[in-house]
């Protein structure tokens, strides 16, 4: 279970405080794949980052016994001058992987990302699609209770999109996801439950269809 208790989160703007959440409490049951819906700029990504504990509420607490991945789609922390392989190694070291585990992850990422010889080239020579493929493959090769995904299904060409969706379906069997997306089709396909974020409120729906209907109502 993920529990939000009286969570308030705001950002300061020149006009005053812009509230993402206002004294919101919520319980998200275990073992559900959750889609996060909301209009642009309502704070979906911020909420996801808060669940991943890399952003913190101004007041209130968020508790959970689960491990969360870093937010996918933020291809952060790659060093342009280092090779794709060296960057993958770095993340493995951060998670304290053994030599054998690291080697397995490297092989997996190399195959999945289809970078070929570029895997041994500095990342600054990559196109943005190649970079995305690398970071997507990297996050798939780690095990977490929850994967945080920020609209990354749209990486690469049509064929790679299909491949990553299939890989994600496979991954969902052993872990849960929190997905931020504007694509209703993807949400329906991958999620059981949904969260709608709107004007400082946050509501949980146990059926993704209900969440989508509510979201469409807001968007009218």
């Amino acid at each position: 279970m993920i529990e939000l208790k009286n969570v308030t989160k705001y950002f300061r703007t020149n006009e005053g405080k812009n509230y993402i959440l206002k004294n919101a409490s919520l319980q998200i049951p275990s073992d559900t794949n959750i889609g996060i819906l909301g209009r642009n700029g309502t704070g979906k990504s911020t909420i996801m980052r808060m669940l991943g504990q890399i952003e913190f509420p101004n007041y209130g607490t968020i508790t959970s016994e689960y491990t969360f991945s870093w937010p996918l789609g933020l291809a952060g922390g790659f060093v342009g001058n280092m090779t794709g392989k060296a960057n993958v190694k770095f993340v493995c070291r951060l998670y304290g992987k053994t030599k054998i585990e690291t080697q397995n992850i490297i092989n997996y990422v190399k195959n999945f990302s289809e970078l070929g010889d570029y895997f041994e080239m500095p990342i600054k020579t990559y196109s943005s699609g190649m970079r995305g493929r690398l970071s997507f493959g990297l996050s798939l090769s780690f095990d977490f209770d929850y994967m945080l995904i920020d609209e990354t299904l749209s990486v690469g060409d049509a064929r790679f999109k299909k491949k990553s969706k299939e890989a994600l379906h496979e991954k969902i069997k052993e872990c849960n996801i929190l997905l931020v997306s504007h694509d209703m089709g993807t949400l329906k396909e991958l999620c059981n439950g949904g969260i709608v974020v709107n004007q400082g409120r946050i509501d949980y729906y146990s059926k993704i269809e209900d969440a989508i209907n509510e979201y469409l109502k807001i968007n009218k």
Partner: protein
Amino acid sequence: MTARKPINIFLAVQKALFLRELGMRFTISKMGLFWTFFEPFMQIMVFIIMKLVLFGGSSENFDFAVFLALNFTAYNLFKNILTKSMGAFIANKALFIYKQVKPIDTIIARVFVEVFITGIIILIFIIIGVYFNFDLNIKNLPMVMLGMLWISFFGFSFGVFLAVGNTFYPSISKIINIFSTFLMFGSAIFYTIEMLPSQIQNYLLYNPLVHFIEMIHGFYFFTLNDRFVDYLYMLFWTITPLYLGLFLYKNLEERIISL
């Protein structure tokens, strides 16, 4: 995923960051790598020539080249730790998406990298010294090493304090960079405090860095001593910024992470 012990997480993160920082240093440009190791020699050459032109041949009772090498190594160690720490949060903010990477880890890793590189430079100096038959006898090696470690720690404690400040007021790093050049001339690097008139001595002794450098060369050369060094003053300047820095860091850590 099985839970890892905090100390294991810390060590894994340190190892990863250390190797990454080192890799960045050595891959960014061949010239960068060259200058890392060549700059200290340039500094020493320039000041030896300057001294020969201005004051003529040797008048002091210690080897001036060794004296410069020692002092510049200590000063560069301090300055590099300070400036690298100062920029650590901003340079590494993309890494804070990995929640086990705490901002202060990036400072600690950078300190280790600086100490490591300084170690290599010292090794090069020793090889050169042995090859050219310089007198490398040290009066009190443990105290010299203590001085080196202490000056690193001094750089770290100031670095933490300034890193937090610099995150919210980026002009701090600009001021410090200008200031550090002046600091070089007022830190007993190309002279000893003993050589100066007492009027100037009193002013310079307010500079904490003078005490560190005086301690290091005072324990290195048989003909010098540490009679101007105030160890309590050094302690004060190490603990105060560390305490303030950690206090600010603790309170602002979450804001630094979500930068």
